[in-house]
């Protein structure tokens, strides 16, 4: 517990005012709670959105689910989409939106995507890149092409899926 002792010593020698000392500790715990609290708990579920120029509809029995861990201004997340019956692939390049708006002041963030063709039990490697001013969305790619309504080398069908893992800096830093 050397860190505790160092902290106590530091505060006591700075100003031994019991009331302000307690207030300092409260502030400190607020900050530590904000940063470390989520790490010590289950990741948070949310619903990501798959978008295109004409948005796809995933169909009956489909899945659109996400889980994320936010550590201060860093978010780590998984997004999963599985098509259902009666799907409509929409039109245009696909984008994934969520869980937070991204900080767009710096270079783009890059994620990892794996597409699955259920009927063929085939898997396709890809990436997601967030470089546009659309703060929350990430464009989807495979190794040699953009991925959209035409599919990642196979036509989207019932039970086909998209899994994305990415991490990025969120737009607003509240701590």
């Amino acid at each position, binding site marked *: 517990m050397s860190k505790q002792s160092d902290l106590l010593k530091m505060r006591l020698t700075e100003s031994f005012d019991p009331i302000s000392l307690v207030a300092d500790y409260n502030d400190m715990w607020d900050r530590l709670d904000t940063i470390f609290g989520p790490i010590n708990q*289950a990741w948070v579920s949310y619903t990501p959105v798959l978008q295109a120029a004409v948005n796809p509809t995933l169909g009956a029995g489909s899945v659109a689910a996400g889980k994320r861990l936010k550590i201060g201004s860093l978010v780590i997340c998984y997004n999963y989409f599985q098509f259902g019956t009666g799907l409509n692939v929409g039109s245009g390049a696909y984008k994934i939106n969520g869980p937070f708006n991204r900080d767009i002041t710096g270079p783009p963030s890059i994620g990892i995507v794996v597409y699955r063709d259920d009927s063929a039990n085939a*898997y396709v490697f890809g990436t997601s890149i967030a470089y546009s001013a659309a703060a929350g969305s990430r464009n989807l790619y495979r190794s040699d092409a953009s991925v959209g309504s035409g599919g990642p080398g196979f036509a989207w069908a019932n039970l086909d899926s998209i899994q994305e893992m990415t991490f990025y800096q969120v737009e607003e830093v509240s701590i």
Partner: protein
Amino acid sequence: MTNTTTPKLGLTKAVPGTAQAISRLTHFNNNWDILEALLDDVDEKSSLSTFSPTAVAGFTVGNGSLIGRNMKLGSLAIVKVEFLAGSTSTFSGVFEIGSFPNAAVAQLGGVHMIGGIAYTEHVSTGSTHIGSLRANNTATGVYVVVPAGRISNIVPFAWVNPDVFKFIAIYECAP
């Protein structure tokens, strides 16, 4: 902090030695214990742990090596794995790797969310391939997915001694 309702000292002055003061001290120490456990996970004194990944399907290690290292920070698990083929390693289908510590708890659409960045090399030709990971749809093992599909005895090359794959994976575990 799992206890977010009573993490703080009170703002009013406590009389030393009273039950009030002791209660606040208990809260404070509880929080330090939680924080210290988190910090110990990433402290330089706590090096990455060793674990033994297993060849679930598609290959046998023989006199090659399949090694792993892992760390855990609250609900965030990170593992790295390396396979080096040996002269008695055998290859027979799609590779599946399992037995990760701190099992992945996030399932979206019934699929464990384990993603990461992978690399394979056919040493004799220097041919290298990047990739990612995706869990077996019905089990906790993972496939390595490169642009040519899941790695197997013939993807992305015919595996022989001393070819290699390695990856780093990130996933949610129980905090």
